[in-house]
């Protein structure tokens, strides 16, 4: 990889799209929309997002918007059952995994983002487990909201501490 002909393998594999589409479709199936409208809406949203990301270099920042709109529509119409809650979180994580695998960036984006995705997945898992333990739906929202606020505060603290610790100085790759 020394000459000008050398290039890197870019990302954007079909497997991450498949994982994300599967997760969103599963969430759509347990959702409140009739027939297969839920999975279709989710997959179409993700497909449009993938198309925008592939076609437009400038628009790729906001390319996930169609998928987010579809996901929001599914979340709003979904019934408040434990499977829908879990699959909603998984669908959201699938979308993030797809976003990490950008075709215009070096391959392996999903692997590089695995730590960040895992931390989000862990939070979703904890929140879901807590919600299962608390039977009342309103109480569950309260617990999950509090958990979310706590995690946000913890992350903000981590971020500030790390930035302070690095400060001006040599790199530590």
């Amino acid at each position, binding site marked *: *990889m*020394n000459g*000008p002909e*050398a*290039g*890197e393998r870019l990302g954007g594999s079909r497997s991450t799209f498949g994982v994300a589409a599967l997760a969103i479709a599963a969430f759509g199936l347990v959702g409140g929309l009739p027939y297969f409208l839920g999975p279709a809406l989710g997959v179409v949203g993700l497909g449009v997002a993938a198309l925008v990301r592939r076609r437009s270099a400038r628009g790729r*920042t*906001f390319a*996930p918007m169609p998928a*987010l709109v579809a*996901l*929001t529509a*599914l*979340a*709003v119409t*979904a*019934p*408040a059952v434990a499977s*829908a*809650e879990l699959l*909603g*979180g998984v*669908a*959201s994580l699938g979308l*993030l995994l797809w976003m990490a695998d*950008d075709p215009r960036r*070096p391959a392996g*984006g999903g692997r*590089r*983002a695995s*730590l*960040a*995705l895992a*931390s*989000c*997945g862990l*939070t*979703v898992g904890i*929140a*879901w487990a807590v*919600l299962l333990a608390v039977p009342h*739906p*309103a109480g*569950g*929202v309260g617990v*999950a*909201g509090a958990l*979310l606020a706590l*995690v*946000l505060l913890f*992350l903000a603290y*981590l*971020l500030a501490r*790390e*930035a302070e610790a690095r400060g*001006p*100085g*040599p*790199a530590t*790759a």
Partner: protein
Amino acid sequence: MSVTAGAVRAVRWTGRAYLLLGSGSLLLFTAVASRSPVPLFVALPLLLIPFASAAFAPGQPTAADLSWSAAGLGPDVDVAGELRGPFGSGAGNLVVEPRPPPGAVPTGPIRFARAPGVVRFWLRWRLPEPTITTVRPPAVFWQDPLAVAEVDVGGARPALPLGRYPAEVHRLGAIRLDRTIALPGETFSRRIGASGEFYGIREAAPDEPWGRINWRASARVGRLLANDYQVDLTGDLLIVLDARPGSSDRALDARLLGIARAGVYGIADALFHSKVRVAFASFGEFLDALPLSAGRGHRARVLAAIAASRLAPVAGPAERCAFSLKRFYRPGLTTMVISSWTGEPSEELVPYLRRQGFPPLLISPSPLPLLLGSGELSPVEEQVARRLELVERRVRLSETWRYAPVIDWDDYWSLEGLARFLRRPSRRRVS
């Protein structure tokens, strides 16, 4: 122009981060309003991921030193660059955003080759016209794989000097210009000296620099002998760059001056290589002049002055230029005037120079290729307009032929007209 490593590194959120946070907040609001935890679970990853990406993504580099160069011919610019720094796995998340010079069009996607500690990139631009410029270093930053958080990366960032001018100017060096200063009593006292071609051997002076001692000859005869060199002066030339605004369109004037500057740069560079003594003067509102001389130091001064020439805010009168030139240079010096010739003030410059004793040669970059093709006219109308503009310009230039030869420079990537004119002196129609 470098940015030192170690600047404070703050996380910068991208538009995508705000999109995710906005969507997450909307879902959160929906969850609370509808008392349903499902939107909350969808919102959780969207709200967390910007922070998690910034906090947990590995290998954020703090410094990456850039080294880059430009190659290619004519309008094509091939840039190859390399970023080196103490980043290991962070190379995959390093983003390089080039900043092409004004008008340059990328002709292909930027290509990368990444390895631990090094990122190489190649890109290709096409320039619309000859250009002398300094390319700003590319923006280098770390970006997480989800493109939600960015951190600026420090390190050395040298600017890239870029010079593209017509290829014909390289052949100007083979043309021997007339020796123009041949006034009575003038002697070339500096013709034999420490630089130039080898001329002969002489006895070394007591304080002779070691570099000029001919050691082989000294060893043969048993005493110190030194080399003499002859500076082969093939001619003298004064280049005058007309940096006055000539029309009401300042952007057009600036663009034409850029083309003229590139041409002057190439001509001066080629003439310096053939040991021609070159003087340079730029006339905007007032005259900025560099003396007539040769040598590396003078070449660097002249080329830097050419590259630094900018369009003057106000056009100075032509007679001021001619009189000012007389204060700096002896009359009789061959003068090459580069002027866009778009307005009245430029037309008076050549007659004034002639009257003050400077035999001029005018090179005029034509504004027509820049004016046409704006898309406002139909193709037929465009063709008619082009012909009318051409006729008008030819008429105006023909009036100048009474005072000086004129080279209409309408193909910016070729100065064949100038080379042909200098190769065939019989066609010099100086009145």
